[in-house]
Every structure is written in C-alpha cells, then in structure tokens.
C-alpha cells in the first residue's frame, strides 16, 4: 500500500484566518494520506476546522483564510502552487467537492441541465452539446433521478434530490478525490440514509477516494474505513474505524465521543457527554487544547503539547500514552 501514490497527501498543513485579533489558526499542523478507493472520515465539533481544511484542499479558502504552512498534494500535485488556470482545470477533473448546504449549492435561475452542462463546457471545449447532454442524462441515472428533471429548476426538486444532483455534478468528470462536506446535514434521517447508500454504491463502482467531513460520529464510523478526529484544528487521533466500537486506548476525547453514542440494542443505556465547550480558537488553552475538558489531565497537559503516539495502527496525540509506551519499552 505505502509505495502507491496517495490521492491526497496533507503534510503539516496549517490554515489561519487573518483577523483583527491576529492570525487565528483554524487548522494546525495536520498530516494525512488518502489512497484511492478508500473513504476517510473527518470528525469534529463545529468550529474544529474541518470545513476549513476541506476548502483548503480545494483551494477555495475565503474570508481571509490562508494556508500558512505545509503542503497539500492531490494526485502528487501541489494544489496551492498552481496558477489560476491550472487550478480551474485541475479542480473537478481530479478533485471535486460536495458542499455543506445542498439547498444553496445550485443556482436558482438555471435548470439542472444547464448547471451540469456548465461542467462539461468549462472543461471539454470540443465536446458537442449532444454528447454533453447524453452524459448529463447518464449522471442523473447514476444518482437515480428521472432524467426528465434535467429541465427542472432547483426549487422544483426536494432537498434529497437536490443533494443527489450536487453529487452528480461532483462526479461528472470522474475525479479521483471527492470531498464531501456534511453532505447529509440538512436532510432528514430517512433521506440521509438513501443518500449515504447512493454514495457508497457510486464509490464502489467509480473507486474514487472520499474525504467525508461530518460531525455525526456513528455515521462516519460506519461509512469510512479510516477516521481522523479533529479538535481545535488538530488531528488528535487518526484511527481505523473498526477500533471505534470500543473505548480502549483512544484519545480521551475520542473516548468521550464513543461514550456519547446511544446504543439502541443495549439493555442498559448509559450515555455520557463531554463536559465543557469547544475552545475559542482565538485564545487556545496552553499545552494540549483539550486539557480543560479532559478527566485525565495532569499538570503536564497544561504546559506541554503532546506528541503523536502510534498505538495499534492508530495515531493518538496524548500524554497518557507516554506512560504506556514507557511500559512497553521497559518490559
């Protein structure tokens, strides 16, 4: 696996918002590799920097956000060193994105077809209108929407259908990487399920990699094979999703998240939340940003930033495992 070229490679990526209060680090020194035909989940609370990271990968940062450090490579190419025209061609053909709000991702005054054809028209100059139309029909069939809806306007479709259209547009050019930024958040549970099934089904056929951004812990651990957990702009843990079924040897934050999942089949239901609130990025706690909410926090956590420990194929950024490692080393 390792010798293969990763579809997405993040290396020490930091993204900051240039604000009046100085540079606010929304994403802080994160590294990650995603290979083809895999789904990687990215979980975090609101404001933990997950969408900012998604936009940084697409080079769509707005509101004074800038990549302050690190490199982002998609298919081996550095996204942030391309010029405007290269980027315009690279985006969507190699990487695409499904936006957070399906409701607003479509232009209200253009038909669905026009918005799909725009993709082909922008990327393939020589494609005939007839062929582009045929492809648009094909796309609609892939996402299970009747092609007659090509002539509809976005407001004539339901929320779930609109999200399917957005997904159809995202896979129009067969990209290698699709970033999905909370694609089901605005939808009800039943529609959510059908969209997820659709995503899984398409992914199986097209074999692209997905970076699935969400705050829905159980949903991501089911869908993804690998999960990165983000807290205050850092990956505090990157693990395979199977390990999320138990609380052993995780970051205390991950443990808290696992404990917060209700189990419908369990006889005794004990759900515990994580006390406190996510930190203010303008004024991050010293040391480990999680320490004010951590039940295991020691004096050391308040002053010293923990390093990454590899435990069982997972990367955990926590002082707790210093002791564990010492034990392992000593024995």
């Amino acid at each position, binding site marked *: 696996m390792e010798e293969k070229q990763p579809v997405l490679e993040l290396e020490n990526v930091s993204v900051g918002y240039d604000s009046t209060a100085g540079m606010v680090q929304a994403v802080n020194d994160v590294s990650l590799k995603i290979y083809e035909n895999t789904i990687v989940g990215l979980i975090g609370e609101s404001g933990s920097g997950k969408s900012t990271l998604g936009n940084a990968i697409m080079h769509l940062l707005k509101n004074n956000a800038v990549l302050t450090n690190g490199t982002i490579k998609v298919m081996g190419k550095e996204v942030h060193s391309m010029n405007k025209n290269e980027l315009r061609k690279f985006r969507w053909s190699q990487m695409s994105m499904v936006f957070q709000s399906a409701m607003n991702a479509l232009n209200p*005054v253009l038909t669905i077809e026009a918005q799909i054809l725009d993709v082909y028209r922008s990327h393939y100059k020589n494609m005939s209108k007839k062929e582009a139309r045929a492809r648009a029909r094909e796309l609609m069939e892939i996402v299970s929407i009747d092609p007659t809806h090509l002539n509809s306007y976005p407001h004539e479709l339901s929320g779930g259908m609109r999200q399917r259209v957005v997904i159809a547009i995202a896979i129009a050019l067969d990209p290698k990487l699709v970033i999905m930024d909370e694609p089901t958040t605005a939808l009800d549970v039943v529609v959510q399920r059908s969209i997820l099934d659709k995503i899984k089904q398409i992914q199986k056929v097209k074999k692209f990699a997905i970076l699935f951004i969400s705050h829905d812990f159980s949903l991501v651990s089911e869908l993804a094979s690998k999960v990165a957990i983000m807290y205050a702009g850092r990956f505090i843990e990157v693990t395979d999703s199977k390990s999320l079924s138990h609380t052993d040897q995780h970051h205390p934050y991950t443990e808290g998240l696992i404990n917060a999942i209700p189990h419908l089949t369990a006889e005794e239901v004990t759900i515990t939340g994580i006390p406190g609130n996510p930190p203010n990025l303008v004024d991050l706690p010293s040391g480990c940003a999680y320490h004010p909410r951590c039940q295991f926090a020691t004096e050391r956590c308040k002053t010293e930033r923990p390093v990454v420990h590899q435990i069982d194929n997972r990367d955990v950024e926590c002082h707790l495992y210093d002791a564990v490692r010492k034990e392992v080393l000593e024995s």
Partner: protein
Amino acid sequence: MRYVMNRIGFFILSLWAAITINFILPRMMPGSPADAMFAKFQGQLTTTALEAMKKSYGIGDTSLWQQYVDYLHGLVTFNWGLSFMQYPTPVSDMIQASVPWTIGLVGISTLISVFVGTALGVYISWKRKGFLDNTLPVVSMAFQALPYFWVALLCVFIFGFKLDWFPMAHGYDPAITPGFTSEYILSILNHAFLPAITLILGGLSGWIVGMRNNMIYTLGEDYVTFAEAKGVKTSRLMFTYAARNAILPQLTSFAIAIGNVVSGAILTEQVFSYPGIGNQLTSAVQSQDFPMIQSSFLLIAVAVLVANLIVDLLYSRLDPRIRTGGSN
C-alpha cells in the same frame, strides 16, 4: 402562462380601481369645479352660465351613475375635458404636448441611470476593494445626498448662466421650427443635457450601491462557490451565476422608478423650465385646473400600473421561481 394571465387580470382590476377612484374623489370634495370657476369670475357669471358650465363638466343634475358612464366614455374617446387655465384647450391636447417631453427627458435619464449604475455596481463588486469600489459609492452618494433643487440650480447657474455652455430653459430653441431635422434634434439634445445630467447623477448612487451590495451578497452564496469550483469561467460566473441573481431586487426598484417618471421630475422641469407634464401639473394645481389635475393623476396612476405590469412580466422571465404557477 397562468402567471401572465394572473398579472394581466390584476392589472385590469387595479386600472379600473384607479379610474373609479379618480372619478369618486373629486366628487367627494366640498364644492364643485364649477363653483370654483364661478367664484373665480367674482359674480360676473349668471346662474344659467353656472348651470351650463356644470353640464359641460359633466356634473349637472344627472345621476351619479350616468356621470360615471359619461366619464368612462370620455376617457376612452380621449375626451378628458377642457382645461381651466388655458380655456378652452382640451386637456388631452395639453397632455399630448407635454408628456413626450417628460418621457423623453426623465424616462431616458432613468434608463441611463439604471443601466450605468447597475453595470458599475457589477464592475466594482468584481474588483472588490479596488480604487473604484472605494471611491464610487461615496462620491455618488454625496451627489444623492445634496438637495436636488440646489444641485440643479447650481448647474443652471454655472453651466448655463456663467459659462453659457448650455441653454437655461425650454425644451428646444424657439427660433427653430420643429421637424425631423438634425438642427431641431441637436437643439433638443442640447437643451436636455443639463437636466438629464442632474437626474442621472442624483439617481445613480442608489443603483450602484444597490447592485454592489446585492452582488457581494450573491458572490458569497454557495452556488457561486460551487460553480467556481466546478470550473465555470469568470465571465459566466459573474453574469449567469452572480449578476443574474443579484439583479432581481434591482428590478423592483426599477418598477418604482419607471412609475415615477411621469410624476417624479416636477422639480427638474421647474428648475429648467422644461415643457413637460410636471411643469403643467404644478401650474394646474396653482390655478385649480381640475380637469388637468384629474387627468394628470390618472396618467400617473396608469404609468405606475403599466410599469408594474411590465416588471412583473420581466420578473417571470428572469426568475423561474416566480412563474411556476403550475407550468411544470
């Protein structure tokens, strides 16, 4: 299609309402135009003359219903009565003589102001935080904030009186015989230039700032970012995705502005002594010329209604969300 029929139906209904109110209102006022005329002549008229006058105004002894029917008939046949101040010129003739001037001057200035302002708004939102974006809204707003009559008077004084670049009054040089000659047309343009400039400058900022703000709001919408990500070229992104949506609120303001063309330029026409309907209306009010006032008001109401109908229909062309009255 159902939407269009709806709008036209509504237009006809409100037109009827405007016409009827225009009939009822003067009749609810104490006294009558004939009494006013009678008083104006200070006893030099006999009562039989008064009766005759009442009859000719259509407010004689006949029933209200009969008056209404006569009034409607008069409207349709352009028999809008005779003016008091220029007795016995028919009001329809006076309106015919003045309205084209107003529509020509105020209408065209409004259109220029809308198009230039909206285009500038798109441009400066595109070049956000550039030089023009930083200066244009402030400068144009300063023009709008100055009292209009003062700016207009200043223009007449500086460019008309002091520098003598432009004429100070009238729609064309009275020395020239009207006709389809280049001399006459040039004279009209020369006379219209100053008032048009004051109107355009006074109205521009609303269009610039309005469009700029709509654009900035729309450029922040997800569908614009999504389109940018999918590779749509900048020009198409700007016009089909951003401006196309941002222009919709402008249309509403446009309807109001067009409706105001007939009535809105009273000040301009006063200051520049322009022979338009605004000027006629002011003198009609001063001399209690009821038929003229009534016809002018009706004309203004009709202008507003027609403008609204046009914009409603235009809206349905531009915004698919409006026209789904079951068309799909």
